[in-house]
């Protein structure tokens, strides 16, 4: 017998298959974060250490990869394989949840690659905190991936629409979360906006956790922000998938 869990498993393993067949694609999709790491980190003022910067880059890598993931679905909508899946008995929510869950895999791999690259340059790894950080980040990515798929389902055959919305939202979210530069250094209005950006809390939590500060209050606020995005994304995405024809 099948149920939502087995259906989700089928979709998840199908999504993961091309990644396993060609693992290099995971590294390939993190070119941009690596460029920021290589070219932006050396420009940082002295008071901002690699220890401060690297967790931001880990989140950025998740943000770039996961926000684009809808384009895979968009392509499958255009070529016809999404339609084929819709005719199978797979439960509609599984079609979304399985896909979104798969996003966690590249996020974890990419975080490991970034940390590995930075270790020789004096980055200090606190494993326990980092792992907890990845859990929070994974929940966030689950929601973000769902939203990206929702956008793909809404855009359908208008590819430009997907990319316009994705690109328009990506950088404000990123900058207003203090991912590249601390938001506290700026004027009041970005700080006010940042308070409404759930990503801000995730980034703050990652910074504390990657430094081994597991008991910081940011861990709780970060986890809450990630849970809100995760649950909200899944809810919106599942509804969109159920309406998909």
């Amino acid at each position: 017998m099948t149920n939502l869990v087995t259906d989700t498993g089928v979709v998840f393993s199908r999504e993961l298959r091309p990644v396993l067949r060609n693992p290099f694609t995971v590294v390939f999709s993190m070119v941009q974060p690596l460029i920021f790491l290589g070219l932006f980190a050396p420009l940082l003022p002295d008071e901002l250490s690699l220890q401060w910067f690297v967790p931001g880059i880990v989140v950025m890598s998740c943000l770039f990869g996961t926000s684009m993931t809808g384009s895979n679905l968009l392509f499958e909508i255009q070529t016809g394989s999404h339609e084929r899946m819709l005719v199978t008995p797979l439960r509609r929510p599984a079609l979304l949840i399985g896909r979104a869950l798969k996003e966690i895999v590249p996020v974890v791999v990419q975080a490991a690659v970034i940390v590995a690259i930075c270790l020789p340059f004096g980055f200090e790894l606190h494993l326990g905190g980092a792992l907890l950080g990845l859990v929070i980040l994974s929940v966030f990515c689950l929601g973000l991936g769902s939203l990206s798929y929702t956008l793909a389902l809404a855009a359908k055959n208008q590819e430009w629409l997907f990319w316009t919305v994705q690109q328009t939202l990506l950088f404000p979210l990123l900058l207003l979360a203090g991912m590249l530069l601390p938001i506290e250094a700026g004027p009041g209005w970005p700080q006010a906006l940042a308070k409404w950006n759930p990503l801000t809390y995730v980034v703050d939590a990652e910074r504390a956790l990657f430094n081994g500060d597991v008991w910081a209050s940011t861990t709780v606020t970060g986890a809450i922000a990630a849970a809100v995005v995760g649950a909200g994304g899944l809810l919106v995405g599942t509804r969109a998938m159920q309406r998909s024809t």
Partner: protein
Amino acid sequence: MIETHELTRHFKDVQAVRGINLTVKPGELVALLGPNGAGKSTTLRMLTTLIPPTSGTARVAGHDVVRGQREVRHRIGYIGQGNGAAHSQRGRDELISQGRAYGMKVADARRRAAELIDSLDLGEVADRTVSTLSGGQRRRLDIAMGLIHAPALLFLDEPSTGLDPQNRANLQRHIVELRERHGTTIMLTTHYLDEADAMAERVIVIDHGRIIADDTPARLKNEHVGDRIILGFEHETDAAAAASRVPHKSHRYGTELTITVPGAPRLVTGLLDDLRATGLSPADVEVKRATLDDVFLELTGRSLREGGAAQPTLVEV
């Protein structure tokens, strides 16, 4: 296998399908024929549970397409207009995950995938990325995807669009074989007349969202058009004389006499002998068999070939 009652679908203010009543028995091979925008694909999409009807009902493989959605999905195979296999995946992987989607165990899905790869001649390409396959290979892979769970009822939406003549013939052979071997009920849509003619025992002609004819290709042609013998004479008087002697429905235009009669190729020599016996000898003779396009022209006043295609929807809206 399929039973619809006043099946209707509107898209905003476009009436794509307007009240289709249709019964398909197990083992039938039915072609839905009509120009683009006639409502063929919309009908198919309702029967395969992709879109709900605006009104009316349809039972497919024993279950209602709305209330028994999952049961219907379990029992049917669907090969859409696009590629079922994702371009980023490998063919065999897609076949296995397709089997799993229908609740098959991994080992069973793997075995069944290997069987289909073999029978659809995909051995050399099954382990390559789908995007590197040719159009014909992809189409065969799509067929394999649709057959993974050995459905008793198979829907194909424009299966041969975009294929070259050789691949089309190949595909038609696979479909006909499938039915002969397993007794699969098959419904396909097409706007290729020769395809409907060659494969289906039953052709349902759809235009403006309605069924306008439903019969075997042979009967459709005989009833609505019939074969024609066209005789060309030297003089109009000969043509007129011949017209009065021929015991069939005929129509003269100048020196040309068109005789409409079923089974024209068999009758033509006897007819010519009779005419020669009375001293009427036509200068040239042409026998035209009715085509489904003639049928469509007769029924709608438009030709399928001219892509009388985009017009209908525009006119209707």
